């Protein structure tokens, strides 16, 4: 492949961490959704777990409608946690090395029993307040980044395309304002 310096420079500016870790990660996220869809016909989303799990402790009708799927949604979420832990135990810990993975410099790495773990530097109040809004918004808006973003866009659902365009635009504006106000990290 021949590239002259200008596009190369542009690529380095737009993608300072390269694209391979993103592309490989995205393919795996898609593959995870495909495995479930091919076997079960279910287009899986991650945010319904929040409401379906609340049905274990609350009688509200809004949560009870998910009683039929709440057990497998717990398993799906446990799978996501364990899959990420498997990543931490292999690639993040350096047990498996690949040029496709760019470790980057965000947050902080720490060691526990030979395992390299990672922790965020983003302030807890941002995570908690943002989390509340994510919990409200994803459930009112009928989906999140996986339900609308991966499964919905993948099936060319107009509702999901509009949903993604809405939350992506608002998130960009919000993040830019928060950064401009000097909130960091």
């Amino acid at each position: 492949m021949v590239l002259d310096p200008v596009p190369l420079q542009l690529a380095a500016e737009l993608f300072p961490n390269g694209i391979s870790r993103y592309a490989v990660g995205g393919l795996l996220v898609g593959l995870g959704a495909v495995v479930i869809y091919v076997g079960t016909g279910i287009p899986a989303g991650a945010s319904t777990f929040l409401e379906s799990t609340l049905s274990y402790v609350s009688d509200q009708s809004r949560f009870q409608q998910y009683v039929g799927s709440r057990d497998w949604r717990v398993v799906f979420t446990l799978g996501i946690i364990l899959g990420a832990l498997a990543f931490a135990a292999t690639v993040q810990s350096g047990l498996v090395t690949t040029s496709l993975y760019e470790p980057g410099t965000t947050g902080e790495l720490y060691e526990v029993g030979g395992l390299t773990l990672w922790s965020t530097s983003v302030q807890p109040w941002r995570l908690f307040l943002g989390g509340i809004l994510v919990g409200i918004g994803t459930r009112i808006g009928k989906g999140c980044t996986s339900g609308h973003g991966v499964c919905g866009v993948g099936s060319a659902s107009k509702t999901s395309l509009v949903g993604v365009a809405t939350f992506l635009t608002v998130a960009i504006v919000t993040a830019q304002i928060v950064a401009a106000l000097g909130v960091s990290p």
Partner: protein
Amino acid sequence: MSQNRHPLFMPLILLGGLIFGFGLGFSQMARPEVVLNFLQFEDFGLLFVMFGAAIVSGIAFAVMPRISDAAPLTGDRYERRLKPFDRNVLIGGGIFGVGWGLSGICPGAAYASLGVGNVTILWALAGMFVGAYLQGYWRSQTADAGAATAGAD
């Protein structure tokens, strides 16, 4: 969902979750900083996660209904389960957008973040449950009140 599920149903859900979570870790979408850098236009790589995943799943959504009538583990038909559009998609999407832009974390990525060792993300997960409860409580009350006259939403 019947209680007489195929014995491989749960193992397959777990396998799908494992791959999904490994991918979120590998892409670093499980790191709020990386999402925030994307939203602040400092690193556009996250586009490859979202579109990469959507393309892969899109192929399966397009192909499976043509080659098979029903999913082997549930007997459910492969069909597009389209969610109806109404203004909730815009309102909810807007609220989600503010939360995502403030915190840099969405539900699936938060579960994965816990898996890579990010104990601090429990703040976000706690917030998500609080938020989901608040809207569910409110909507259950209004739905129950409205059910007598108009039926469910």
